[in-house]
């Protein structure tokens, strides 16, 4: 990843959006690029939480969850 706020960073943002199949306008890409450095920094800061080093994520998966009733049925 290029340093944030650089042309390389802009290219990375554009590439990530394109890779996801999204087709924002130039203005929207510019806005996403402008916001990205702070967004990236805040996401990176999640890895700085020492207490999370051995934390189990708050994800759900239940092996026995095979008979869930469809709400619309």
């Amino acid at each position, binding site marked *: 990843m290029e340093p944030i706020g650089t042309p390389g960073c802009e290219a990375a*943002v554009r590439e*990530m*959006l394109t*890779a*996801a*199949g*999204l*087709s*924002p306008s130039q*203005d*929207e890409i510019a*806005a*996403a690029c402008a*916001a*990205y450095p702070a*967004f*990236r920094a*805040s*996401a990176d*800061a*999640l*890895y700085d*939480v020492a*207490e*999370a080093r051995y*934390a*189990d*994520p*708050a*994800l*759900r998966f*239940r092996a026995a*969850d095979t008979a*869930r*009733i*469809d*709400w*619309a049925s």
Partner: protein
Amino acid sequence: MNDLPLTLTEAAAALRSGAVTSVMLTEAAIARADKLDGVLGAYMARFDDYAMAAAEAADEELAADVDRGPLHGIPCGVKDILAMAEGPTTAQSLILDRSWGEGRDAPVVARLKQAGAVITGKSTTMEFAIGLPDFGKPFPVPRNPWDTATWPGGSSSGSGAGVAAGLFYWAIGTDTGGSIRIPAAFCGVSGLMPTFGRVPKSGCVPLGYSLDHIGPLARSAADCAAVLEVIAGPHPSDPDCVDAPFRADDPARDLAGVRVGVVTENQISAGADPAVRPALEAAVAVLAGQGADVREVRLPYWAEMVTANIATMSAEALAYHRGDMCTRWGDYFAATRAFIAQGALISGADYVQAQRVRRVAQQALGELFTEVDLIVCPTAQAGSPSYDSLNEGPGGIRQLMELVNTGYWDCVGNPVLAVPMGFTAAGLPLSMQIAARPFDEAAALRAGRLYQEHTGWHLRQPEIAGAEPAAA
């Protein structure tokens, strides 16, 4: 409803005393909607005939001593991201297939019908429960009854505006980053985000699977309690929903012995409206006057939870929307697509890390809740913003995120009640959040009820609601 009861609980009592009928309440609600909704944009769809039939049925049942509880015969609204058999669910979007949930009731809606509630229609939302209006799209633009040049908050915009303006007594909203509490705050009404897992969210168009909450907006805390009692409880279609008891009845007359933590750090920034701090101090004084033991506390992992809320919501939403966003980008509202596209800018590892830090924060908050019983803080740092001041694109979303103090609580899943606590100098409502331990909504609602018994903020009505309904 000028000569009619103002709150749900008052209306329920008046129905049983014979002072009013459900038909009277519903006719007044319809007349109010006829007069005001062209300006307020609170309804996505109205079910006038269905509502009148439900009202007539309620009157007949009550006359025959068939009492379905406090919602029986009371007009309400349902946010248009919950399925309801009487009409298509749009999520206020061109995208959602109108056949989704067609002819079906979400479990929450089914419970409301079983309780005899008179559902008057589907209330407006921000598209897919996120973002801001897109004035170029063919949907109503919801407006704040306190100042129609301002946003009523979102995403449960029509639910908040409708309660404030008297279009209905209460409404169902959803909350993923603040979408019940923000419109409650900006519209000067009460709103309850129940504990995650308290209310089944199946039959509701998802925004963030691990963050979505369904709950009530109403005039008072007591009204919210009455609604929660009906909609809470497990459902086999929602594995997150647990069987935990909740009863609206609460005999407590004071807050003696209740430890209340007050948070101002990160809640009242340099840019906050100057009325927020004194309003919070006054509200806390009311709680102390009821016997509460008040102390200053700080919320652990505040910044991390704000990030985790955005990262989790955008990633989970992109998983749901990516197929449509790839092919119909321009059909989404500008703010919706800008927010959800952020999900493409984080990695799978980022997402999992956010869930690990959520666990850490949840545990740290649990430790804080061994020292206090309730936590209070402002819901928003200002009154409702004007539409002129809001950027419809990604800048607008960031602007809003800095204005509100709500997303933290969606991440940790605790129940939070938002109650009116005053006004800005411009006459726009301010609001206080009252948070409690998981599945202890009763504690937050008790404090809210006692606070409202000693203040009148929740009974204030915007000028627009004081106008007489148009002649039939």
